[in-house]
């Protein structure tokens, strides 16, 4: 996979040099081979370096990388079985949110995630990962299904946001998101949400009210997409990098603020460089959190979840919040 992001240009240059040397094939001399080895080590070193200190905007670019693994990729790589369920039983089947019953090391879970699509055809079918109300209502149906059968819910967040269209307003985009927030807050089964790419606004939160919120380390989660925030704040979407920095949207920021419960490591150079390893890390993290959450009695689980969200917020002269 080529290095194709702006800030990866130095590494891309190294790669080009490696390729030039390798094109000699059998005509490669011993010192050429030595140079290739050196360059490859340098690629590794520089990649590691770059990704160790991603700027907020760089992180946004990595999180949106078009080769980043998506919900369907993780399902394929992590689950021993997956039975996809379709439709909201009301209006339609929105492919920007996929979901079904999965087996994760023998544990039955309800797996629900945004799907952006890989090639242009799938991307269009998935509306580029921007759900309509029926997508959220499908997710809602699957979550109450999971509750009935005592399956933990695992969600994968990867969206720019809910789709903004006239028909979405007609069918109640606000209502659909709001209802999910309430139902998830009170769902009588464990919920683990993971930001696997972009965490965009209410459209992300609508499948993100969880006992544990995980984030892959190169992802972000924001109250509004940086472009939208820049437009709202400064009426100019080109200030998106400034918005990304000012709003502290990176996974490490959210962990530091206590909003994200755990970071999931990515392969060097981002999840898109090694889907298998990304999936292995994610699977390990999910199993760890599910092991713990499924041991908690439901009433306590719900009280904990309530307290978790109840206590989010920073204000001055705070009177200690009490949750019974």
């Amino acid at each position, binding site marked *: 996979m080529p290095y194709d992001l702006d800030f990866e240009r130095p590494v891309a240059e190294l790669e080009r040099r490696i390729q030039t040397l390798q094109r000699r094939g059998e005509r490669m001399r011993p010192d050429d081979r030595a140079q290739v080895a050196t360059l490859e080590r340098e690629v590794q070193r520089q990649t590691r370096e770059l990704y160790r200190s991603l700027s907020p905007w760089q992180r946004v670019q990595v999180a949106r990388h078009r080769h980043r693994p998506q919900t369907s990729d993780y399902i394929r790589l992590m689950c021993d079985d997956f039975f996809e369920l379709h439709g909201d039983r009301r209006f339609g089947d929105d492919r920007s949110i996929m979901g079904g019953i999965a087996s994760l090391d023998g544990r039955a879970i309800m797996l629900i995630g945004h799907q952006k699509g890989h090639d242009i055809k799938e991307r269009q079918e998935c509306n580029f990962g921007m759900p309509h109300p029926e997508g959220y209502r499908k997710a809602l149906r699957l979550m109450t299904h999971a509750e009935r059968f005592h399956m933990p819910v695992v969600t994968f967040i990867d969206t720019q946001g809910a789709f903004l269209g006239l028909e979405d307003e007609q069918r109640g985009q606000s209502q659909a998101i709001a209802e999910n927030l309430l139902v998830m807050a009170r769902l009588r089964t464990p919920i683990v949400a993971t930001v696997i790419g972009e965490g965009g606004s209410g459209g992300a939160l609508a499948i993100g009210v969880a006992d544990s919120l995980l984030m892959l380390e190169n992802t972000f989660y924001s109250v509004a997409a940086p472009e939208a925030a820049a437009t*709202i704040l*400064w009426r100019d979407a080109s200030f998106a990098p400034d918005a990304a920095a000012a*709003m502290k949207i990176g996974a490490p920021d959210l962990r530091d603020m206590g909003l994200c419960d755990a970071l999931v490591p990515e392969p060097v150079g981002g999840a898109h460089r090694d889907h298998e390893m990304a999936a292995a890390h994610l699977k390990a993290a999910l199993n760890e959190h599910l092991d713990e959450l499924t041991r908690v009695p439901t009433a306590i689980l719900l009280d904990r979840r309530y307290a978790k969200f109840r206590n989010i917020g920073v204000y001055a002269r705070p009177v200690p919040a009490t949750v019974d």
Partner: protein
Amino acid sequence: MRDESQPALEAVSQNGSSAVATARPLPTNLAVKCPNCRELLVAKDLEKNVKVCQRCGHHFKLSAWERIQLLTDPDTFKEFAEELRSADPLSFVDRTTSYARSVADKRAKTGLEDAAVVGRARVDGLPVVLAVFDFNFIGGSMGSVVGEKLTRAIEMGERERTPVIIVSASGGARMQEGMYSLMQMAKTSAALGRLAEAGVPYISVLTDPTTGGVSASFAFLGDVILAEPGALIGFAGPRVIEQAIHQRLPADANTSEFVLAHGMIDAVVHRRDLRAELARLLRLYRAAETVAH
């Protein structure tokens, strides 16, 4: 959050010069131009008509205290959580100013501490917990303070089995508090989930405008949802949608009447009837409560 620079009230003094007014009582010598029908209205008459244009029925925005006065029995409103202040958790520095300075400005201009006021009150003798937004305070946007106030109001309703009324007027979440703002959507919705389990009524009143993260959380979770006529209501504003789909929208898109026609709310209620309609609902719920307990 849509912090529209368009003022809540566009006021024109009688000599013709223009002035931006807050939603507080206007000097009686002013005329006000209705943004809908362009009629010049005498401010005093407009005040008397609960800030509804006598000609076309346009509902001007109300400040939080005007709204409280409109809806509650005299001297029954007891504010709580009024001590809460924004804490600027991200040390947010704008390109031109800072969040801290914006908040200070708005405080000075509106006399409010943040975009919502919450308290206990009575409506036609019946007890309620009431939360009211003020659009003049950073577009009625919801950050940590607003979320905390609403949550305390909802929890009080649950604890005391008192119906909760929230009157929204908001562009959505407050950008300057980042993810803390987004999470207030989950926080308030979680509280409403417990209120619903307890069987305590929640009435949501949507006023102009109710959009973004506020519409996509508590505002659309009412057991009953009412809206004032002609209010902008939706997940996105019409201009945002037009940009997204590259089409002009019909004139009534995302109005109260539009969401009523699409099954999203229960009724559009004229401002002069709002208090009576709330009282009617409260009495019906009280009758149910009496039977059940």
